[in-house]
């Protein structure tokens, strides 16, 4: 009898030890939210290969790309839900040569990020970062979210920084008959910026997909820059890069509304 009891106990132990995956304690309802980053040029919709006038100067853009990362949602109880593996590449671009033309990254427009498995609740704020945190920026082998060496947002040419480009706006500046190419990029660890956006009204997550919309104003991204004097902003223009990073976090991205569809 004792032996049988022992067997039963041991069996129970083994059965118990492997049932972890099947058990779902504390099932709480979950929901889905869509974050939309609507690119604008002031009040107009942003578009590639189209003339825009900003501050009296004509611009034509060929790409707008930036990382939205480490997204968190904060509910009305003050609880924070950190979205795992949240590295999203927002972009509007023509086809891009990757690895010196070894292959091509296709033209793409992506303004929406869908986040699932959010604990149900009323959410009143969103926080996220523009760029890639130092841990992942300094180590291209770490795979998380959409981080990849293959999307043209890494800089891995010979003996150069091996890290990510955080944001990239490219196009041309047209004055009379003169056309100058412009590149406005960030990517140093010190360019990493986090922002917290309070929603105009709390949004319910758990029922219908919640929608949170932001306007991303390109005129604000380049505000304060002298692109006539410095048309290319990259690793050697630290001051300008800092300004651009601040523009993304302080001016360019504003919440425009929330809804449930």
């Amino acid at each position, binding site marked *: 009898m004792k032996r049988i009891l022992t067997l039963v106990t041991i069996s129970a132990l*083994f*059965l118990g030890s492997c049932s972890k995956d099947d058990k779902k304690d504390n099932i709480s309802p979950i929901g889905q939210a869509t974050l939309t980053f609507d690119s604008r040029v002031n009040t107009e919709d942003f578009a590639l290969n189209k003339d825009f006038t900003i501050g009296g100067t004509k611009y034509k853009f060929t790409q707008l790309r930036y990382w939205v990362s480490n997204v968190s949602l904060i509910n009305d109880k003050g609880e924070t839900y950190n979205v795992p593996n949240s590295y999203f590449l927002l972009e509007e671009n023509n086809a891009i040569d990757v690895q010196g033309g070894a292959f091509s990254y296709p033209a793409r427009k992506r303004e929406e990020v869908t986040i699932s498995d959010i604990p149900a609740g009323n959410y009143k704020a969103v926080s996220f970062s523009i760029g890639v945190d130092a841990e992942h920026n300094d180590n291209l*082998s*770490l795979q998380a979210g959409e981080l990849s060496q293959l999307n043209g947002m890494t800089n*891995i040419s*010979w*003996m150069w*920084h*091996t890290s990510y480009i955080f944001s990239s706006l490219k196009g041309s500046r047209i004055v009379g008959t003169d056309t100058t190419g412009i590149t406005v990029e960030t990517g140093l660890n010190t360019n990493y910026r986090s922002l917290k956006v309070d929603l105009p009204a709390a949004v319910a997550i758990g029922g219908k997909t919640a929608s949170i919309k932001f306007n991303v104003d390109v005129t604000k991204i380049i505000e304060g820059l002298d692109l006539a004097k410095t048309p290319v902003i990259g*690793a050697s223009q630290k001051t300008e890069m800092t300004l651009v990073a601040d523009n993304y976090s302080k001016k360019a991205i504003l919440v425009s509304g929330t809804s449930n569809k």
Partner: protein
Amino acid sequence: MRQYTFILYVLGMLIFSCKKANIIPEPQAYRLEVPADFPGVPVFADNVMSRQGVELGRMLFYDKRLSGNNQISCASCHHQSLAFSDGLALSTQGFSGKQLPRSAPALMNLAWENNGLFWDGGSTNLESQAFGPLTNEDEMHQNLEELVYELQQIPAYVKKFKAVFGDDIKTGYIAMALAQFQRTLVTGNAPYDRYRRGEPGAEITAQQKIGLALFQQHCATCHAGVLFTDNEYHNNGIDADFTNDALEGLFLGRFRITYNLADLGKFKTPTLRNIALTAPYMHDGRFKDLAAVLQHYADGVKRSATTDAKLYTNGQPGLRLSKAEQENIIAFLQTLTDDTFINNRAFSEPALP
């Protein structure tokens, strides 16, 4: 008999109850063997070394499939017999056959290289560094997406990646495995080491001892400690004109990475271990032998705003070493050649899947 039945029963439960989790064996911990008087081995929390990981990295290091034309492996430019350098100033052995702008560095004691990889420190760690040569069109010119596809066709690799990383083959894992193997390339058993440790019968010549004293006086500030490097960046006065900003600032040294004017012309201090095997010297291989290097430090150092202050003697650039002193230092440098390193079977080409 009842005892046996009981044991069988327990074993049976063990096997069946957790069968799914037991298909892939856990990778076994790898303990890096280092000489007792070396600095402690750093922990690589993002890429913990395992026996299987090192073994996989070793295969990838020697596998020519890692290049776009399947003809070039890491080992094509990093030969074990030359302490993982290639004996060339500027190689033309890459995909395009075009001359590369910098000399292939020797690979040794990389576990302690914690202040940037490449001659200018452009890469923070081995895991990121690998993507440079892998993708550069004049080096291995590998399309990374294609590489993953190619390796996926080889069942042995699929199995090995699964065993090490518990996942399918991904570009990041290729870099991680390569890093694990490269961190095992430890050298610390040269005649000088055996002499320094007072091992029985270990001796260096009288001239080498004189050279050692001179070395400690003139060279050991930068080529410091048992690793023979301070892992820092210095302008050693081989150039004084930094107006050529071609190739994205390639000739400007560390400045290319930091954009700090104080870093113009600075390059990383290479280790001097196995230095007799790694000619030609400097980031562009401009000095064909150690005699030329010592000649430079003696009286060839050029003055510039960033030339290292330690390379001046009484306000004049150069260490003012006599011919005899130069020869004595070279004699000492010969004692840093570690035959056990270049002959270590654990580092040589393995059977490839």
